[in-house]
């Protein structure tokens, strides 16, 4: 039983790492209805930029500031070059544009900083902590704290501020939002910049975990089931989705994986997400769409 709890809590904490990635998606989806496949490459770009600057002898606080500004500029640039000409196009077109965007950002990141693997040290020791008889990774605890804080801040932003209200209006109907005088370009620029900043935080935590390398951009695929279980437009959903995916993934790998030969963590979250979708087609917390003729 102790082993079961240890596996479960380890999985739950790892799941919150997925939540970090999923937040970036939800942010953009909520504000523009775009499913942003490029979020993973933004994470890679941010982490690679930060590490490369630090390796050139810049203090890490300064490097963080520089990278943050870079990500904000990148976000604004994406709005100007890619999204603005695509206003009011079908969502599938926007999705494919972000696919192209992910190629551009990956190519750009590796052209600028090279393709070798970098280590990243955040100064948080990854030592096991003993909490109520269960040993937990200190690093994972820290990362979950960051994820929870981000969810809280962004949740408040969306529900309690005027900016959040306009973001939701834009997501609901771009044309209607324009008609009531919401500055669409400003809103999108802000959201993509914030998503870039979230990408930076994600990139630092994930980079410290698995090393800064190309495979960092593939965490999109880990975040997708989280996103789908939680619902595309629910920030709270990313936490719940992350916990469900992380916990069940580890349990399945440990208990079910033995039976079928292991390596199931690649597809298990997707099958799980599929089951959840059959029960609730827009995820646990996603808004159900009303279909009209």
């Amino acid at each position, binding site marked *: 039983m102790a082993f079961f709890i240890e596996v479960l809590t380890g999985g739950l904490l790892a799941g919150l790492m997925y939540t970090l990635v999923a937040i970036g998606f939800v942010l953009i989806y909520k504000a523009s209805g775009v499913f942003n496949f490029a979020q993973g490459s933004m994470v890679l770009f941010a982490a690679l930029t930060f590490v490369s600057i630090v390796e050139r002898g810049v203090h890490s606080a300064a490097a963080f500031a520089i990278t943050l500004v870079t990500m904000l500029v990148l976000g604004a640039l994406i709005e100007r070059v890619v999204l603005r000409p695509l206003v009011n196009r079908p969502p599938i077109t926007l999705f494919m544009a972000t696919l192209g965007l992910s190629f551009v950002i990956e190519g750009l990141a590796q052209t600028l900083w090279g393709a070798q693997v970098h280590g990243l040290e955040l100064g948080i020791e990854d030592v096991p902590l003993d909490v109520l008889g269960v040993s937990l990774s200190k690093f994972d605890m820290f990362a979950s704290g960051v994820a929870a804080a981000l969810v809280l801040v962004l949740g408040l932003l969306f529900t309690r501020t005027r900016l959040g209200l306009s973001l939701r209006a834009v997501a609901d109907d771009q044309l209607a939002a324009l008609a009531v005088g919401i500055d669409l370009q400003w809103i999108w620029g802000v959201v993509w910049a914030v998503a870039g900043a979230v990408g930076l935080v994600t990139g630092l935590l994930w980079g410290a975990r698995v090393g800064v390398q190309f495979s960092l951009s593939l965490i999109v695929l880990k975040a997708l089931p989280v996103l789908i279980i939680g619902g595309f437009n629910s920030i709270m959903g990313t936490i719940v989705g992350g916990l469900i995916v992380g916990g069940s993934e580890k349990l399945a790998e440990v208990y079910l994986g033995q039976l079928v030969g292991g390596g199931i963590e690649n597809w298990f979250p997707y099958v799980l997400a599929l089951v959840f979708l*059959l029960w609730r087609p827009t995820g646990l917390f996603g808004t159900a769409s009303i279909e009209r003729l």
Partner: protein
Amino acid sequence: MSYHDVAGLSPSHAADSRVLPLRADRVALALLILVAYAVLPFVGNDYVFSAILVPFLVLSLAGLGLNLLTGYAGQLSLGSAAFMAVGAFGAYNCMLRNPGLPLFLSFALAGLFAAAVGVLFGLPSLRIKGFYLIVSTLAAQFFVQWLLTRVSWFSNDNASGVITAPPLLVLGHDFSSPVGRYLLSLTVTLGLTWLARNLVHSQTGRRFMAVRDMDTAAAVLGIPILRTKLLAFAISSFYCGVAGALWAFAYLGTVEPHGFDLKRSFQVLFIIIIGGLGSVSGAFLGAAFIVLLPVAMDNVAVRFFAGVIDPGHLENAQKLLFGSLIIFLLIKEPQGLARLFQRLKERVRAWPLEP
């Protein structure tokens, strides 16, 4: 060759519903097929056949399959490579376990296996819509790849899951040479393209498009949504399955499940984005582009920048170019190269009456 006709109007319904309404198109296509069968096999060399023409034809076929599903029926799929893998391993096992089975029959069976898997993963499409559907096709992508690697029965207990194509015998003739494999791919691709072109002009094709444009409205009109969507998944997966079998047998010769990873699915998706969603010729234009661009870039790099650009940089440059091009096309011409080609034709037809 003239594209002139009477204001684009047809004298009868039969003439109006022809697969290729313009006579000039029919002539051009016939000439193209003639060249492909009677001229190319004699003038091409092995490099052209096995590195350009065969992958072009096979990827066109896969693109066509995905276009039926995504471009015509509107169901986004990121699992094309999984269905290709099912086709490749299906054809391999058919021929392995039934010695003497005709090649084309094993291709057809491979397509049917892929269609069955496609229907299975297409089942959620009735309840799940839009982007949520990619979870289903991605589940197919990861699950199939895992299953083929994990269960060694599929690769005849090969340690690394690699399968090797048997000799390609059709009616006693060996098609294993580069020219033979080209002719084989050409025949299969042309046959299936002809079927697809007819399909999209039929009632089924129109149902696909009605579901794509708005499935609630289509349901109100009395179109059976579930059956139409599943049919789209089945046909699309059949095409991908046959393409996968050709990819393994005619193009590579030996493949492993890893050769059908998510990257391949994206490649097929890019083919139809670049070529044109919802068009048969788009799959061919897109595939030509995707096959030729890396070749062209390699040549340019070798000829002009030898020693300056290393392969790593070239790969990044390719990514940058591809990505930018996709964004550019989506902004400027969302219907892809096929639409550009069509516009060109229209201008030729109108010339010299309109500028």
